[in-house]
C-alpha cells in the first residue's frame, strides 16, 4: 500500500524552502545580522548584559545603559581608553583660589548630532534637569558638591538655584558648596552629559528613540529594538569624527551568558559582556589571548543589621565572624574568575589611594581561627549556646555556592548555626531598605566613578545605600574632612584613617573584589583593560584580516 499525502509533500516543500533560504544566505556568513552593504569590518558587535532601561543619560541607572550612553554623549570631561580623565566637550578649565569656582571653556564650534550648536546654556539646563526631583534621576547625587544641589534634590529649592551658570556661550561656571577634588571624575560619569533641550521638550520621556535622540557623542542612535539590539552610527557632527575608526556599532542585550558565549563562538559578537563561570577554566586554556580579566571597582560584601541583636554593639563578635571566613578560598575557588580576596572595603584598584587592610590579613588561617574562637567564646557563645542567625542572599548560583561555603566555615570554625535564606533580588532589596533583615545579608557596591570617596561615603550616617544602619560620628567627620581636603596626600590620609576605623568595627564584611571579564575578538584593536570597565567604541578599531595578532 503506497500512500502519498499532500500534507507530507507540503511539509517537505517547506523544509526544502528553509534549506534553500539557508543556502541563499551563505555569502553573508562572516557577519550574520548585517543587513546592508557596509563591509563587516566597519561594524562592531558588542554584548551588554541586559536591556538598558533608558537611553536618557539622566534616567539611566544600570551598568549596561551607561556603556551605550558613553558612545552617544560626551560630558565636559570624559574617560580615555584606559579609564583615565580626558578633556571632553571642554578642552580646558580653571579652578579659583578657594577651590569653589570651576570655569570650563567649551571647545569652539561644538554641535549636536542634528547640527544645532551646542552651547554652555545646554549644560546649565541639563545639570538643572539632572538634580530636579521631577526628573527622577538616579545619579542626581553625583552633582551633590554643587552649591544648592542638596536642597534641590531634597525638594526644598528650585532647580534654578543650582550653582551652574553660562556667562557666555562658550563658558560653563560651576559654583561649589565646598571644595572637592573628585569633581572631574563625577563630571566624567555618563549622567553628567548634556541633553538636547528642544528634543526633550518636544518628545518628553519618549525622546531617547531613534530619529529623536539628539546627542553630542561620537555615535548617534539609529535603531532600537527592545530585546533585539541597539544600532549606532558614527555621528558626523562629533567634534572629532576623524578620530573615530569604526563606522557602526551594535549593542546586543544578552541576559543569558551561555547564549552570549555561543554567539561569540559562532562569530556573531566581537566583544562579550561576561564570561560564563562554569566554562571559565576552559576558556582560560583555549582562548588566553581573547580573555580579558581586569580588577574592577566593585566589592562583594555581607552587611550586618546593626540595629538589633545579636550584632548590635558587638564589634568583637562581628570580627570573629570575619576572622572565620576563608576569603582566599571564596575568591579563588568559588568566585574563581580572578577575583581578589577583600581585606579592605575599598578595592586596591582605586586611583591614588592604597587602602589599609584588616590587621589579620597576613595572619595564617590557623591563627585567625584561633582568635575567632576566643572572641566567640568571650561574646558568650559556645557549644551549648551557639550563635544563631540568618544569612540572606539574592538567588543566583554564585551566591548560593558562596553562602553555603560561609555557612560551613562559620560552623566548622565557631560552631555557629546559620540559616540560609535565598530571596528574589527585589525582595531582598525591599527588605534591606526597610532595615527588616535580622542577621546578615549579601550585597555589592560598584563604583560610579574612580574615587575612594565613592566607597567610603556609603557608610556615612544616612547615606542612601547604608542599609546597615552604621552610624559613627568619628567616621562621618573624617570622611567629611577628606571630601573637602584639596591636598591629594592629606586627602588620602584622612580617607585611610576613616577606613581604618571602619575596618576595626566590622559593620560590613567585604568578601572579594570583582573583576571585569570579557572575550575580545583578535580583530578588535585598541582595547585597554581598566578598573571602571569603560571601553568607549570610539577608541576601538577593527583589524583586517581577522585573526592576526592579539592585544595591544
Amino acid at each position: 500500500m503506497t500512500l502519498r499525502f499532500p500534507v507530507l509533500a507540503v511539509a517537505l516543500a517547506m523544509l526544502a524552502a528553509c534549506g534553500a533560504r539557508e543556502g541563499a544566505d551563505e555569502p553573508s556568513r562572516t557577519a550574520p545580522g548585517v543587513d546592508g552593504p557596509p563591509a563587516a569590518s566597519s561594524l562592531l558587535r558588542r554584548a551588554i548584559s541586559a536591556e538598558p532601561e533608558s537611553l536618557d543619560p539622566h534616567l539611566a541607572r544600570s551598568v549596561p545603559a551607561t556603556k551605550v550612553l558613553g558612545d552617544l554623549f560626551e560630558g565636559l570631561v570624559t574617560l580615555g581608553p584606559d579609564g583615565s580623565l580626558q578633556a571632553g566637550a571642554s578642552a580646558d578649565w580653571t579652578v579659583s583660589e578657594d577651590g569653589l569656582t570651576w570655569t570650563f571653556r567649551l571647545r569652539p564650534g561644538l554641535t549636536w548630532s542634528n547640527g544645532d550648536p551646542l552651547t554652555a546654556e545646554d549644560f546649565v539646563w541639563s545639570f538643572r534637569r539632572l538634580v530636579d526631583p521631577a526628573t527622577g534621576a538616579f545619579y542626581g547625587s553625583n552633582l551633590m558638591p554643587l552649591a544648592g544641589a542638596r536642597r534641590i534634590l531634597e525638594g526644598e529649592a528650585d532647580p534654578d538655584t543650582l550653582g551652574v551658570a553660562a556667562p557666555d556661550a562658550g563658558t560653563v561656571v560651576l559654583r561649589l558648596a565646598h571644595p572637592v577634588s573628585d569633581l572631574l571624575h563625577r563630571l566624567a560619569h555618563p549622567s553628567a552629559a548634556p541633553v538636547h533641550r528642544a528634543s526633550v521638550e518636544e518628545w518628553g520621556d519618549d525622546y531617547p528613540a531613534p530619529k529623536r535622540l539628539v546627542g553630542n557623542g561620537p555615535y548617534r542612535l539609529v535603531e532600537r529594538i527592545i530585546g533585539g539590539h541597539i544600532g549606532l552610527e558614527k555621528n558626523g557632527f562629533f567634534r572629532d569624527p576623524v578620530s573615530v575608526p569604526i563606522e557602526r556599532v551594535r549593542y546586543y542585550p544578552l541576559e543569558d551568558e551561555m547564549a552570549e558565549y555561543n554567539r561569540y563562538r559562532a562569530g556573531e559578537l566581537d566583544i562579550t559582556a561576561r564570561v560564563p563561570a562554569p566554562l571559565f577554566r576552559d576558556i582560560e586554556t583555549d582562548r588566553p589571548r581573547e580573555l580579558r580579566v581586569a580588577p574592577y571597582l566593585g566589592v562583594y560584601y555581607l552587611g550586618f543589621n546593626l540595629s538589633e541583636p545579636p550584632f548590635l554593639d558587638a564589634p568583637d563578635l562581628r570580627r570573629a565572624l570575619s576572622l572565620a571566613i576563608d576569603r582566599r578560598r571564596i575568591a579563588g575557588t568559588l568566585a574563581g574568575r580572578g577575583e581578589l580576596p577583600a581585606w579592605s572595603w575599598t578595592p586596591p584598584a582605586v586611583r591614588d589611594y592604597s587602602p589599609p587592610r584588616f590587621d589579620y590579613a597576613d595572619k595564617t588561617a590557623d591563627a585567625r581561627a584561633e582568635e575567632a574562637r576566643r572572641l566567640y567564646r568571650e561574646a558568650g557563645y559556645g557549644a551549648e549556646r551557639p550563635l544563631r542567625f540568618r544569612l540572606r542572599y539574592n538567588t543566583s548560583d554564585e551566591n548560593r555556592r558562596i553562602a553555603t561555603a560561609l555557612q560551613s566555615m562559620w560552623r566548622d570554625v565557631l560552631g555557629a548555626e546559620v540559616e540560609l535564606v535565598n530571596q528574589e533580588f527585589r525582595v531582598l532589596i525591599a527588605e534591606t531598605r526597610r532595615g527588616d533583615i535580622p542577621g546578615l545579608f549579601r550585597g555589592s557596591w560598584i563604583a560610579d566613578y574612580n574615587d575612594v570617596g565613592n566607597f567610603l561615603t556609603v557608610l556615612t550616617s544616612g547615606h542612601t545605600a547604608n542599609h546597615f544602619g552604621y552610624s559613627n560620628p568619628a567616621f562621618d567627620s573624617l570622611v567629611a574632612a577628606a571630601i573637602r581636603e584639596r591636598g591629594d596626600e592629606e586627602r588620602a590620609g584622612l580617607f585611610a584613617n576613616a577606613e581604618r576605623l571602619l575596618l576595626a568595627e566590622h559593620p560590613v564584611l567585604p568578601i572579594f573584589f570583582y573583576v571585569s571579564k570579557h572575550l575580545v575578538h583578535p580583530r578588535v584593536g585598541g582595547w585597554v583593560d581598566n578598573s571602571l570597565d569603560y571601553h568607549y567604541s570610539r577608541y576601538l578599531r577593527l583589524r583586517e584580516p581577522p585573526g592576526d595578532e592579539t592585544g595591544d
Partner: protein
Amino acid sequence: MLRYALTRLASAVPTLLLVVALAFVLVRAAPGGPFDTERRLGPAMEQRLAEAYHLDEPLPRQFLRYLGGLLEGDFGPSYRYRESDVGELIAEGFPVSLKVGGVAMLLAVVIGTAAGTLAALRQNRPTDHIIMALSMIGISVPNFVVAPILVLVFAVTLRWLPAGDLATPAHYILPVTALALPQLAYIARLTRASMIDVLKSPFIRTARAQGLSERSIVLQHALKPTLLPVVSYLGPATAAILTGSVVIEQIFNLPGLGRFFVQGALNRDYTLVMGVVVFYGALIVFFNFVVDLLYGLLDPRVRYR
C-alpha cells in the same frame, strides 16, 4: 451559529475581567516595588515617582484606573523602560513572536499530523516504532536542552546557521525548529492515537466494505474526525507559542513577548506584566473560540446552540 458565537464572545468578558483582577492582586502582592534599588533615590524623588505613576493612591483606585485605561486600549507606561508604553512594547514584540511561533506551529501541525497518520497506518511496524520513539524524545527533551544543542551543532561547530537575532530568513531556522519540535512530537502522538481509534470505527468498516481505496478512506473519511483532539489541543498551544517562549527568546536573542513576561515580573514592572497577562488571556480565549468553531466544521455531530 451566529448566536452561539455572540454568546461565547460575551462570556469572554467576565473571564478576562477575572484574569485582570487576579493578575493585579498577585502582581501587587509580591514584595518589592519597581523603583527599589540598592541605593535609595531619596524621599523627595520617590514621592514624585509614586505620584507620577499613581502608586500613592489606594489599590482599589489604582485598579479602577488601570481598568479605565484598558477600556480605552491603554496598557499604561512601562515602569522599567521609561521611554516606552506597554502597548508599544507588546505591539513591537508580538509580530516577532507571531512570525516565529506561527511558522513553528504550522510546521508542527503539518509534519506532526503527517507523521502521526503514517505511524497509525503502519501500526506496530518499524516505521511506527521509529516515529513514536522520536516523538517521545521530542516531548521529553525540553527546549532549554534542544536549543543550545542546535546552536552548538549548527551555529558554533558547523557555522551553517546564525546563533541569534532575526535579520534574515536563515535566522529563523534554529529558533523555529527548537520551538516546533515538542509541539510536533505531541501532535504526532495525538494524531496516531486518534487515527487508530477512528480506523476501527464502524463507518470506516462500511467504507472499506464499499470497496473505497485506502487512500480515499484515510484522506476523505478518517482524517477529519482524527483531527478533533489535535484541534482542541491547538487552541491553548497556539496561544502559548504565539506569546513567545521565554527560553527560546533568551537563547536566540529574539525581541519577542516572552521575555517581557519574565523580566517584567523580576523588575516589578507592574504594567508590563499586567499587559502581557491580559494580552495572553485574550489570545487564549480567542483561540479556544476558534477551536470551538472549527469543531463544527470537522465534526458533523457538533451543533451550536
